[in-house]
C-alpha cells in the first residue's frame, strides 16, 4: 500500500510536467489547428538557456523568469517568421514545418552545447516527506505546475487580451470584425506555449539530465495526455497528463519492465483513438453546411 501511494505521488509529479507540455500543445492546436511537433525541442532549447544562465551565476529563480521571457519572445518570433508563411498552406505543409523546427532545434542544441549529458540543478531539495510517501521535489514540481495553470486560467478568464485570444481561436473572421488583431493573438499564443514548455523542460531536467534528446520521451507522454484529454480541451490536457504520469509509473512498477514504459504511452494513444477519438473532454468538430 505504501509503495502504491508512493508510486502514485511520483507519477503525479511526472504527470504535472507532461500536463504542462500537453497544455502547450493544446493551446497551439486550438489557435491554429496545428500539432506542434517541435514543442518538446523548443522546451529543451529553453532549458539550455536556463542552464547557461544558472552557470553564469544567476540565482535559479532569476534564471527561470528570464528563460520564460526569452522563450515567450522566441515563440512569438517563430510564429511570425516560420509559421505565418504557411498559415494558409495545406495542413501537411505546416506539420512538416514543425517537424523541420524539431530537427533544427535538436541539431542547434547539439552543435552549441554538445550531446553529452549535463547535470541540471533542482530548485527543490530532495527530502522525503510523510514517511517517504513523497519527496519535496515532487511537491515542488506539482506546486510550480499548479501556479502556472492558475496564472494561465486567470489570464484567459479575466483579461481582455485573454478573451480576445479565445475569440480569435474560435472564430477568426468575427474576431477581425470586432477589431481584434488575430495575427498578434496567434503570436502571443505561440509565445505562451513556448513559455509553458520552458517550465516543463526546467522542471523535468533535474530528473532526466539535460541533453538535446531530453524531451523526446516527454513529448510522447504529453501527446498521449493531450489526446486522452481531447486535443481541444485545456482542462483535459492537464488531467490527461496526470493520468499518463500515474499510469506510466504504476505499469512500470508492477506490470512490465520500465524499459517498456514508452510502449505504454503508445498503447494508450491507440486505445484512445480507437475507442474515444475525442478524448475525455474534447469536442468533435461539427461543421454546419
Amino acid at each position, binding site marked *: 500500500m505504501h509503495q502504491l501511494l508512493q508510486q502514485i505521488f511520483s507519477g503525479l509529479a511526472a504527470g504535472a510536467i507532461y500536463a504542462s507540455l500537453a497544455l502547450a500543445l493544446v493551446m497551439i492546436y486550438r489557435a491554429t489547428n496545428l500539432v506542434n511537433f517541435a514543442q518538446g525541442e523548443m522546451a529543451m532549447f529553453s532549458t539550455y538557456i536556463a542552464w547557461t544562465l544558472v552557470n553564469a551565476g544567476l540565482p535559479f529563480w532569476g534564471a527561470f523568469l528570464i528563460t520564460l521571457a526569452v522563450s515567450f519572445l522566441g515563440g512569438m518570433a517563430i510564429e511570425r517568421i516560420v509559421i505565418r508563411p504557411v498559415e494558409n498552406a495545406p495542413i501537411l505543409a505546416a506539420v512538416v514545418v514543425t517537424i523541420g523546427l524539431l530537427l533544427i532545434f535538436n541539431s542547434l542544441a547539439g552543435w552549441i552545447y554538445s550531446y553529452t549529458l549535463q547535470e541540471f540543478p533542482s530548485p527543490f531539495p530532495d527530502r522525503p516527506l510523510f514517511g517517504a510517501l513523497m519527496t519535496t521535489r515532487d511537491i515542488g514540481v506539482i506546486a510550480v505546475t499548479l501556479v502556472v495553470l492558475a496564472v494561465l486560467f486567470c489570464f484567459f478568464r479575466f483579461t*481582455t487580451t485573454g*478573451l480576445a485570444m*479565445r*475569440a480569435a481561436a*474560435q472564430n477568426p*473572421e*468575427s474576431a*477581425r470584425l*470586432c*477589431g481584434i488583431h488575430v495575427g498578434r493573438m496567434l503570436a502571443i499564443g505561440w509565445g505562451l506555449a513556448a513559455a509553458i514548455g520552458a517550465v516543463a523542460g526546467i522542471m523535468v531536467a533535474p530528473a532526466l539530465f539535460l541533453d538535446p534528446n531530453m524531451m523526446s520521451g516527454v513529448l510522447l507522454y504529453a501527446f498521449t495526455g493531450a489526446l486522452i484529454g481531447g486535443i481541444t480541451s485545456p482542462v483535459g490536457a492537464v488531467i490527461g497528463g496526470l493520468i499518463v504520469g500515474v499510469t506510466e509509473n504504476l505499469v512500470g512498477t508492477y506490470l512490465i519492465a520500465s524499459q517498456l514504459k514508452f510502449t505504454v504511452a503508445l498503447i494508450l494513444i491507440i486505445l484512445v483513438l480507437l475507442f474515444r477519438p475525442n478524448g475525455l473532454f474534447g469536442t468533435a468538430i461539427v461543421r454546419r453546411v
Partner: protein
Amino acid sequence: MTPILQLRAVKAFYGQSEVLHGIDIAVERGGMTVLLGANGAGKTTALRAICGTVRREGEIIFSEHRLNGRSTEQIARLGIAHVPEGRGTFVGLTVEENLRLGAYTCTGTPHENMQRMYAYFPILAERRRQQAGALSGGEQQMLAIARALMMSPQLLLLDEPSFGLAPLVVESIFALVERIRREHRVSVLLVEQNASLALEFADRAYLIETGYVVSSGSAKALADDPQIRRSYLGY
C-alpha cells in the same frame, strides 16, 4: 450633407472570379439604406468588400477615410460594425463575453454600454452567463446586433437579420434596430431578402442583380415600382 459611406465602381472577387462588377452605393448619414436582391446577387459580398474580408477594387470612402488597403481590424476600429451572415457569434463564449468583445476597440470599461444593450435586449441580461451557442436563433441575432453596437459604431452593416427567424421575431428585431438607429444616430446599411419589410424601414434602397446595381432610389419609389413589386414583393 455628404454620405457617411460611398462605394465608387467597386469590384469584388472570390479567387479569380469577379462577383461585383463595379457598383456605386451611398449611405446617408443617420439613415437606413437597404440592398435588395435575389440569392447570389452580391449583396453580402458588397458588405464584405466594405470590411475588406474579400479582395476588392474601386474606391470605398467612409467619412473622410479611404478604406482601400486597410485591414479588416483597422476598418472596425474606424467605427464600422459588421453583423455578418450567420451572425458571427462566438458560440463557445458566454453572452457577456461576446458583448465585451464587441467593445474590444473601445478604451475604458464597457459597463455603461453593456447596461444600455441589456435595456434594449432584456433577454440577453437574463442569459448573460450562458454560452452564446445555447441561445435561440432570435436571441443570437439580438446578441449579434448588441455586440456590434458595443463598439459605438458610426455605421452598422447588417446582413440578413431576418434569416431563419419567425416573422414576429423579425418584426421586433427590425423595430429595435430602427429605434437604436434614431437614438444613437448610427447609420445602417442593411442587406435583406425580405424586401417588403426592409422597404418599410429603410429610406433608400438599391437593387442588385448578378453583381450590378440595376435600380436605386428612395425606398418608397422602389416599393412603388411595378416591376420590383412583381419580382421582389410578390404583388
